[in-house]
């Protein structure tokens, strides 16, 4: 059941109609049933895959809370991590691992071709595994207490709006909400509905429209010349609209049901640097990686370096470099078992290491050319450069293999191809329209005339927008990109 399918909206209509009549104390049970139905609708067998780590980690966390000795606590913690990560490894990375080992062995001895294992990646596994991991780590470090209620914990792991592609909300934020009473709040419901429509617009009007052009240029890069640059730009917006559209819908659905999810995107393409981009892109994952990977790695590195400097480089620089590079690398690998994702992650690691190392130099250059006197130009340039760096990295993310990404880059030319594409111009117009709305939405609190409009006028504008969505929507059969991760 995808958010852009009729099935889902039929399902949600039933949930919505019944949910508010369910007594407060049974709401969690109703949502848990709905969530398991939602996941089982895709493949019943994989319900076990959701239930098993939930049960194991529930008891592990309870065991950790009750553990008398640090050794026992640590043992439980690692066993919980092994179960969760083990499942993720088997279903997601085993094939890549096997293939890589086989290829490596092939350099030394003659090997027969390897037939692939036919493992179907369970949808949403990376997302609910990360939710479980953050819970285990937080309980281990006693940041949150272990949840006593198995049902509430199971709901935290499987909450259907966030189950397939996030946001990866933390237990500290979500579990208390499941325990609080939910009241009918018309304002909250309408704001959730607006988010859903906006998400749907991003997905079926923008992302699905850009998909066609992007597929064409990535499939046949030869003779596409300048279109290849725009192909990367369009893919940047396609994946943004696709994923943030999904997140908006997930947040909207949660909101209607009475729960506040964390914001997953904050206009990332308006970022002035790569580190700012990562604080605005897939926020629930990037903050997860920051808290559970980057910071521990960076501190561990700094602790290992006993002196203030090592090889004339400060200990904190070593800490930052190690932390950011490995975090980005693993962040890339989280997306899927393909080397192109690892390269994509590594590129972001290198970008940020370079930015860190060249901070002073860049400041000097800005001062020398007098750019600090024109802050708007400085901002525009920074946004443009950041966007281009991000778009360049997306080429590796989108390409089927590393060699195909290089082929794509090698065909880039700075002139338009001989045969024009009407879709190119149409997409450009559509993107400008989208950016205009995004800008308006981002600054809606500062736009005075909009604030002054009475509510019926705003309602009329929204109704018109809904109709426009119907006119411009592409067919809804395209899957969300992030569902494959």
């Amino acid at each position, binding site marked *: 059941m995808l958010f852009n399918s009729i099935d889902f909206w039929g399902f949600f209509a039933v949930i919505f109609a019944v949910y508010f009549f369910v007594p407060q104390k049974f709401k969690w049970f109703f949502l848990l049933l709905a969530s398991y139905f939602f996941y089982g609708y895709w493949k019943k067998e994989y319900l076990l895959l959701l239930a098993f780590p939930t049960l194991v980690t529930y008891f592990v966390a309870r065991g950790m809370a009750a553990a008398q000795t640090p050794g026992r606590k640590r043992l439980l913690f690692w066993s919980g991590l092994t179960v969760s990560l083990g499942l993720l490894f088997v279903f997601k990375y085993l094939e890549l691992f096997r293939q890589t080992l086989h290829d490596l062995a092939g350099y030394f001895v003659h090997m027969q071709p390897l037939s692939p294992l036919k493992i179907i990646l369970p949808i949403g596994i990376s997302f609910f595994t990360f939710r479980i991991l953050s819970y285990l780590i937080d309980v281990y470090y006693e940041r949150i207490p272990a949840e006593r209620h198995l049902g509430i914990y199971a709901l935290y792991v499987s909450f259907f709006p966030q189950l397939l592609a996030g946001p990866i909300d933390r237990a500290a934020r979500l579990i208390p909400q499941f325990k609080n009473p939910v009241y009918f709040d018309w304002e909250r419901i309408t704001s959730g509905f607006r988010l859903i429509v906006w998400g749907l617009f991003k997905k079926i009007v923008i992302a699905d429209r850009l998909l066609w052009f992007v597929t064409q240029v990535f499939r046949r890069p030869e003779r596409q010349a300048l279109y290849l640059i725009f192909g990367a730009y369009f893919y940047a917006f396609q994946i943004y609209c696709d994923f943030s559209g999904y997140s908006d819908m997930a947040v909207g659905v949660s909101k209607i049901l009475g729960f506040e999810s964390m914001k997953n995107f904050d206009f990332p393409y308006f970022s002035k640097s790569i580190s700012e981009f990562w604080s605005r892109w897939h926020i629930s994952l990037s903050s997860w990686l920051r808290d559970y990977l980057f910071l521990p790695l960076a501190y561990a590195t700094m602790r290992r370096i006993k002196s203030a400097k090592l090889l004339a480089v400060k200990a904190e620089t070593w800490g930052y470099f190690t932390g950011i590079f490995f975090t980005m690398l693993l962040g890339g690998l989280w997306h899927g078992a393909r080397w192109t994702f690892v390269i994509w992650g590594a590129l972001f690691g290198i970008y940020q290491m370079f930015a860190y190392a060249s901070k002073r130099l860049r400041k000097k250059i800005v001062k020398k050319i007098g750019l600090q006197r024109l802050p708007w130009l400085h901002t525009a340039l920074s946004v443009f450069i950041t966007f281009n760096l991000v778009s360049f990295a997306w080429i590796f993310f989108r390409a089927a293999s590393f060699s195909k990404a290089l082929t794509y880059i090698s065909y880039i030319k700075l002139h338009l191809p001989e045969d024009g594409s009407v879709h190119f111009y149409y997409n450009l117009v559509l993107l400008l329209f989208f950016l205009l709305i995004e800008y308006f939405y981002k600054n809606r609190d500062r736009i005075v005339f909009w604030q002054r409009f009475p509510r019926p006028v705003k309602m009329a504008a*929204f109704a018109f927008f809904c109709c426009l969505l119907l006119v411009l929507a592409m067919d809804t059969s395209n899957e969300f990109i992030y569902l494959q991760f």
Partner: protein
Amino acid sequence: MNSFICNFKKQYKKVVFELLGFVLLLFLFDRLLFALIQQRESSFYRQNTTYSLNDKFASIYKKSDYKILIFGTSRTYDGIHPWYIYNELGIRAFKEAFVGKGPMYNYYFYQEYKKQMGIPRVVIYGVDYFMYNITTSRSWMQRFNTGVTDTLYYNRGISMLLANKGKIDNFFNTVLNDLQKSLNRVEYSQIEQDLVLMENYMGVPNTGDVVTQEPPQYDKVFFFQYPGQEGVYFSRLMEELHRDKVTVLLISLPDYIGTYWTNIFHRKYLRAFRYYQRKYNNVHFLNYNHIKKFDLNNPEYFINGGYGRTNSHLSRAGAEILNRLLINDLRKYLPENDIQKR
């Protein structure tokens, strides 16, 4: 009482007022936008004069060479090629298969073809799983003075935009294709209008767009049954071809295995077309969409399709295999003296 219901009672006036207002506004804008699109569509087709059939027929050097007429959609356009037929059998085939051409178009085209070229010996009709769900593009219907374009009705529904979504998309695509013409040197629809280009067209190579990995979940599609959108015209055409004593080969083109499993109820689909074989002695149904006849598992033979995709087109390599199979079968149905040994 449930706290939710308590809260609802406090807000219900606002809720009812805003809900009703919103629905009313939706209804209003839906009609307004639809009327606007309808008006633009009419004026677009009135002004559009580029879809002429006369040029196409006028370009033919020797009309009597053409003994085969090929109908179908884009699947046939990519799958069955006159080039192979001419090279193997020495017979020219007039291919009219193209995207957006449904049974209604084919029926009217056949009337025109008879007037201009005479009755063909054989009609090859590439049937699709979704054949009864096709609506002929209005731009193609402009070629005939049938008035049919005016009678193309709009579906009624609570939302006119939703009920006519397919038709609106069709119109937008026509506008985009029209704009595309002004940008391109040689483009897709130019082949449709130029018989020489069509006769030399042998398909496109595989570009790796086939979904070969079976996803955990994908939508399956039922067979859209007769009469559907334009099934009546298909029946009329079969009847007329029977009266004209034309041999008809209904060809079920191969689908990539993923598409094959996406389109369910194959028996119904096969029965729907075998019906014509039983009804008319001039009609023969040839099913190449079968693993025993064609390697449906090989993605190299297709340019698209796959799990969750209801439509699949043959690549150049796939078309070559299909055309060889078809030519073997065609020999059985063509009079011996029509075939020139090569």
